[in-house]
């Protein structure tokens, strides 16, 4: 148990963040993280823990994503509605984000989702601090190709984002223009 607690303390947060960025859904991310740690509990010993955890989480996401997407959407909508009802009863201290942040979030989401699955995963793992050998192990790549993958992922993400930005400004600014 001590070992699992340590594992959890060290890796739960980065794993959830990785999954949240990957999935765009915090609750779903937490679920997958749960499942990942449950599997870790069952392992006798894990060599290279971070790599293993991220690999398992990534594979869980891939499997789920292919299978369950519509059903999940429905449940998410229902859940959010239930939540909103409840929140309406509490005094709401909901976090408010600005339009600007929402726009950036939206564009970042789209740009990231435009990457191939592998490129996206490699980039998000790198953002969580995994080194090349860990990424290689988690995604079953050669270490040599990690650099190429990251280079491609970063370039496509940035260029995709910039394209979205310029489309947005051409389309009229999405409402962030100052009143004239």
């Amino acid at each position, binding site marked *: 148990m001590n070992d699992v607690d340590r594992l959890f303390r060290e890796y*739960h*947060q980065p794993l959830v963040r990785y999954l949240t960025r990957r*999935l765009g*859904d*915090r*609750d*779903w991310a937490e679920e997958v993280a749960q499942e990942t740690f449950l599997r870790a509990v069952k392992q006798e010993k894990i060599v290279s823990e971070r790599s293993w955890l991220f690999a398992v989480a990534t594979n869980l996401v891939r499997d789920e994503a*292919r299978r369950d*997407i519509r*059903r999940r959407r*429905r*449940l*998410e*909508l*229902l*859940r*959010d509605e239930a*939540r*909103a009802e409840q*929140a309406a009863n509490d005094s709401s*201290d*909901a*976090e*408010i*984000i*600005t*339009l*600007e*942040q*929402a726009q*950036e*979030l939206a564009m*970042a*989401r789209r740009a990231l*989702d*435009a*990457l*191939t*699955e592998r490129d996206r995963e490699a980039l998000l793992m*790198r*953002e969580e601090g995994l080194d*090349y050998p860990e990424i290689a192990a988690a995604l079953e790549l050669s270490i040599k190709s990690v650099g*190429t*993958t*990251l280079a491609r992922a*970063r*370039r496509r*993400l*940035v260029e995709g*984002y910039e*394209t979205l930005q310029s489309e*947005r*400004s051409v*389309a*009229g600014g*999405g*409402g*962030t223009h100052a*009143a*004239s």
Partner: protein
Amino acid sequence: MQHPDEGTIHAWLDGALDDGERVAVEQHVASCAECAARVADARGMIAGASRIVGALDVTPAAAIPKRAGAAQPSSLWRVLRVTPARAALAASLLVAASLVLAKRHDTPNKLVPRAPIAVATTDSSTVAPAPAVAAPAAAAPKPAAKRVQRALPERDTTPPTVAAALPSAAASSSLNNPRARLGYSVTRMSELAADRSAPGMNPFVGCYQLGSESAQELAPLPARFALELSAESGGGNRNVVRAVTPEGRVDSVLAGSSWRITAPMLSNVNLTSPNGPRHLNVSLAPGGSVIASVMTDSTPHRIALSRIDCRP
């Protein structure tokens, strides 16, 4: 050595090369202007990608409503729980057909038209002031490393706050009043869902009216408001739906008239009101209530929409 390829440059910048390779690259780059430029470009890509990924960490109230005492789980065992709500949802069979919002994991190489805007606000008629943000970076592409520096506007990192006093602006006085009612009603998602025209369709497809409930309540529309409809799934994945006028034009809707929302598409719409061209921001808040807001300067003011029957 020969010019290092892009993958090697990134590996070098990421500190992933072994000593021999690293030294070789360093020496080459020190003496090769072309490669030095490519290194600068790569640095820009790395920083830009990092910032874009970081932009995903903004979490509007939708996904996780804040509750007093809701802390990060500190041990594995607290995380392993099934909340009653989840169990109930999983168990309940809802006759309401599946609400399929735009697929998210489409062909990966295509940009799925989806990017949304949602502004989560409190339920009162006060508004969330937009903090003075740096001018959005709709910059023309700049060369190499510089380009990426402008990819994201610098965003202040102070945590967002609940609506406070509006900044005083030059706009008309009634709109500066946080409690000004603009006289429109809110439709909740449950109504929208029940109302949808075909199973499996986007629940926000349908007809809406921007109109006042009573003439006396109608406040003068502000100078500019932009229309963009967004639908938010439970996953925090937001889709923007297009608003199309009865005449079929996307870009001109009479305020007070009805318009039809079709498939999820990103769109800006100009509204034409008796006072002249207007822009109205419309969003679907978490939980699905339809909210419209009007921007004057950079301050959103909240309005709402009424769901109406679609006429053939």
